[in-house]
């Protein structure tokens, strides 16, 4: 596998990994049978992602995309964090091998689910597009879709 320098940097020294015990939102996507599973924890204050951490089971790309995603989302407003695209993740990493692009999708999905979880827990009205994204993510059954 040909990984960019940035991917390998994030993989060997991942940023923001671990649990947030008193998290405000948790997004869990993927599963071990597929080979990638990501948990993203967020702590929110005044609509801003104050803290974000991840736990990932998976390959080099899965760990690197999780790490870079937490960098991109930290200190952003929820709305801005939801605007992060898989391309933003790929660009921040320099490049990702084509068969590993699904890892960047997984990272975005995990963040989306964490925000959704935060909204539900705090009884915040869920915007329509977030509801749609959430439904799409939960519908995905096969690996690496």
């Amino acid at each position, binding site marked *: *596998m040909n990984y960019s320098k940035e991917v390998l940097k994030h993989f060997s020294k991942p940023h923001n990994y671990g649990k947030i015990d008193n998290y405000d939102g948790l997004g869990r996507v993927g599963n071990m049978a597929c080979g990638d599973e990501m*948990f993203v924890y967020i702590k929110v204050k005044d609509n801003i992602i104050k803290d974000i951490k991840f736990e990932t089971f998976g390959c080099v790309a899965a*760990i690197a995309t999780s790490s870079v995603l937490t960098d991109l989302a930290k200190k952003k407003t929820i709305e801005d964090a939801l605007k992060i695209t898989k391309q933003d993740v790929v660009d921040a990493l320099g490049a990702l091998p084509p068969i590993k692009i699904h890892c960047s999708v997984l990272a975005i999905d995990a963040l989306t689910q964490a925000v959704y979880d935060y909204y539900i827990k705090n009884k915040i009205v869920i915007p329509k597009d977030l509801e749609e994204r959430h439904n799409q993510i939960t519908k995905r059954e096969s690996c690496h879709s």
Partner: protein
Amino acid sequence: MIYFDYAATTPVDKRVIKSMMPFLNEKFGNPSSMHSFSSETKKVLEKSRVIIAKAINASSNEIIFTGSATESNNMALKGVAFAKKRGHILVSSIEHDCVLNTAKWLGENGFEIDFLPVDKYGIVDPKEVEKRIKKDTILVSVMHVNNEIGTIQPIETIGKICKKNNIYFHSDAAQSFGKIPIDVTNIDLLTLSSQKIYGPKGAAALFVKDGVKIEPLLHGGGQERGLRSSTENTPAIVGFAKATEICLSTMEKEQKRLTKLRDKIIATLIKEVPNCYLNGHQTKRVSNNVNVRFSSIEGEAILFMLNSYGIAVSTASACSSPKLEPSHVLSSMGLKQEEAHGSIRISMGRWTKESEVNYLLKILPEVVKKLRDISPHK
């Protein structure tokens, strides 16, 4: 960097390189020519054939030189199939892709293919062969040593069953030749490789027992008894023979040394790393192969992290394969996908030192711990 991937390929031994050098320039003649330039190459070609034949208790006319073990395996399966024209072929489900995909291709082209199951250790039960043989079975192919998990298959017994039933038996010995004694008394076709035994790439052989009828894949000038046309790759073949000689003369001692290192790695990892398991059989296993799995982490990540510590191993995890498919060997043994994901292969060889094994045993548990710290499952 420390190399623990000898099962993938080996560096060429300096003595082998030395033996090859004259045949790259001054003794370059085409063995098929009539003039004096060819006399030496013709002679050395036949001498090499004798060395390799003796190594497996065969006659020299039964050795066909090819360009790779993949070619030899293709030649064995397609060669028999084309000669027989139709029929049923049995192959084990843990064969190397070059046997499996050849068998599948034959299956799409008029032949009936059956895959032999393996037990939880990755070993074929000869009774399964007996059970699955049909009236029109033309060939059984079971590898000698599996490339991923190193298990040694009962090819003697399977060979006898085939002989009794008058069916050709082929075995891919790419991972065992030079490491385990082989006798072809009950084998009809056997694949041998040079690049796994400190010989050059581009040289391999297929043993074709006297009287076994196969069709060639390559037609042309009729070299290699008409079974493999192509100007012989004399330098590589000379190197292959030299590599064989060295392996045979050091086999017993080297296998003892590697077995000790292998067992040390297995015992230490299982004792010191929680939820670490051996893939394959503990003793019916080639001396240089360790294949272990760690729960909750993924093989490609282990490989890259070890690489950053200067250690090269391999993995057959799905995430490392171009199609993101899990290893067919581990699945055939009944491992669940989530179990197979965390597997790595550590393979040793001629230059593996105990100090390198000790370094691996220091670093690998740290790497596993680091990745488990990142994983949601501990």
